[in-house]
């Protein structure tokens, strides 16, 4: 009996020790978190995301941290170059000994470190990319996405078409890579057997194509009355302009990736884009509807105090604020068990978490079999001056 008691005590001590030892990157006063961001290079506009997150955790630390620990988000530059992402991620994991990686940006860059992080069992939380593959919990149990994936977005447009115009003749133009094909697959998910009947013509373009005029002319000849544009900004602008110039007037749907007024609609011609429909989930700071919204007021106060001088019309700051807030929720839920296993467990057990800068009704939801935290959008129509939200929130299919 005595021995048994000792054994139990020893076992408990051993367990407790193992637990403390199994919390890499965590001390009594600090949690170390790693991140790679394109602060330089072609995608450097997205660096705003990382800057907002660093600022958010500075605010959290000023308020006393999370469960008594300060957050140390080490956000480093990878220039949107996958080899550099590998180098920086290894540096953060092996030399700095971070607890986990958070919201690393870019599909090619995060793909380059996905296997490594899963092999090392380091959580790769809330990657900042719209690819659908981050929800693959069976093969990559340590990786989880965040925003509504391109595939989910494609599903939502298809759902809307089926509901409002079941006899539509749809034309689809998509970029011939993972990005474009995700959308394409999303539309297929919803149309299913009806695909052949609904879709008059689908066509792809290559990123090396100087123009997409040939494709647009071919689509027009198909006689379609609905056009889905799954293209990156430069090509989206070309397509919108060409469709208008050749006197074709389909109902256009445009990927959320290319809704920038400055980079797409103005180059194409704002009047040529009137009537285009897209989907969104973040409150847009330029939308007057949110002038008295508490969530946006808090965000503006945060921007004024922690990011003075930053461009408040840049949605990347709102996005960064939202993801950081989600992470803060996860860390709070972890309590004192900040082992990598428990962090992953809490990140995959979020139920209807409301983020005040998301359109009301859109919530974060995860489960051990759902690694797609956001799966809802509200549609918006371009009226020549702003994107006007309309209709109910639409939810895409599961993973």
């Amino acid at each position, binding site marked *: 009996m005595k021995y048994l008691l000792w054994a139990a005590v020893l076992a408990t001590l051993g367990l407790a020790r193992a637990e403390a030892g199994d919390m890499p990157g965590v001390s009594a006063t600090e949690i170390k978190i790693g991140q790679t961001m394109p602060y330089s290079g072609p995608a*450097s506009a997205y660096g705003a995301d990382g800057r907002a997150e660093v600022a958010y955790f500075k605010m959290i630390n000023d308020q006393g941290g999370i469960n008594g620990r300060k957050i140390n988000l080490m956000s480093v530059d990878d220039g949107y170059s996958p080899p550099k992402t590998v180098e920086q991620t290894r540096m953060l994991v092996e030399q700095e000994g971070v607890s986990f990686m958070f919201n690393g940006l870019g599909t090619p860059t995060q793909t380059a470190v996905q296997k490594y992080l899963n092999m090392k069992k380091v959580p790769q939380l809330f990657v900042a990319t719209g690819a659908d593959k981050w929800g693959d919990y069976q093969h990559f149990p340590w990786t989880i996405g965040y925003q509504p994936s391109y595939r989910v977005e494609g599903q939502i447009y298809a759902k809307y078409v089926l509901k409002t115009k079941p006899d539509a003749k749809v034309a689809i133009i998509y970029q011939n890579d993972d990005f474009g094909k995700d959308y394409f697959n999303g539309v297929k998910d919803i149309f299913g057997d009806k695909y052949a009947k609904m879709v008059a013509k689908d066509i792809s373009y290559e990123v090396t194509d100087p*123009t997409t005029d*040939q494709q647009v*002319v*071919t689509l027009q000849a198909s006689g379609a009355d609905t056009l889905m544009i799954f293209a990156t900004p*430069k090509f989206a*602008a070309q397509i919108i302009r060409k469709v*208008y110039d050749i006197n074709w007037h389909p109902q256009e749907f445009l990927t959320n990736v290319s809704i920038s007024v400055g980079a797409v609609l103005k*180059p194409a011609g704002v009047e040529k884009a009137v009537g285009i429909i897209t989907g969104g989930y973040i409150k847009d700071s330029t939308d007057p509807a949110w002038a008295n919204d508490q969530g946006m007021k808090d965000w503006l106060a945060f921007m004024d105090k922690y990011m003075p001088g930053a461009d408040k019309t840049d949605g990347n700051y709102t996005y960064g604020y939202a993801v950081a807030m989600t992470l803060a929720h996860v860390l709070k839920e972890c309590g004192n068990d900040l082992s990598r296993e428990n962090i992953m467990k809490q990140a995959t057990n979020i139920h209807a978490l409301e983020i005040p800068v998301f359109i009301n009704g859109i919530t974060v939801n995860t489960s051990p079999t759902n690694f797609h935290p956001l799966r809802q959008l509200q549609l918006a129509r371009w009226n020549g001056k702003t994107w006007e939200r309309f209709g109910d929130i639409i939810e895409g299919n599961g993973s």
Partner: protein
Amino acid sequence: MQALWHQIFSGIATGGIYASVALALVMIYQATHHVNFAQGEMATFSTYIALALIEAGFPYWLAFLATIIVSFAIGVIIERVLMRPMAEAPVLASVGVFIGLLLIFNSVTGWIFSYSVKAFPSPFPETSQFLGGWASPHEVGATLVTLVVLVLVYGFFRFTKLGLAMRAAAYNPVSSRLVGIRVGWMLALGWGLAAAIGAIAGMMVAPIVFLDPSMMSGILLYAFAGALLGGIDNPLGAVIGGFAVGVIENLAGAYVVGPELKLTLALVIIIAVLIFKPAGIFGRVIVSRV
């Protein structure tokens, strides 16, 4: 039938883009017997200069002219500073410099002017009902500008002493020097003119494909194909080659192999032409005695 004509017109309009860049390639080849891989990036940089001038309040055509002059100067400076020391180096060393220039121009452009896509103004009127929408006024205007440049380049090489001297300097530097041609300056002049023509091409292309630091990377490939098809030592051939590539690409994409393989098909046709006529359809076969 209407769709077919539409594809052909649209192909001619796109071909005009390739033709204008192909002309710049011909210019540098005529002057130096090299193909400058950085030609496209240099043209993009020039186009950004034009945009900066226009945004600073210059009228379009004044900005156009100023850009051509500045680009000419940049071309001359690059030859004097970078290419001059390479005069005796093997061809591969020059290729290394060209690729280095390409990377430098691309990064510097992005660094100074940002990577985001920008609209570039057109000097031609903006009406979309022009020609039933088959080609925009700008596409027609840009094609005319290309033809004007073609006539100037052709006339320059064919009828002026300077043009003759430049051809001689590229073809046989030693003999040219012996008859009193300043070969070094001829090369610099060739670089300057090629950069100037590239700038014109950039300013004509940007309103169609929109301006970003990698604007020319895809276009240069097609322009190169057009120049090879028509004959890289023949301005007229290169322009016709550019138009041909545009039309072939559209018809192949629409009716033969689909958009994924249209570039491949265009390149296959070019290889076929080069096998049977290595100098291109309009190129002269140069036989040198060894």
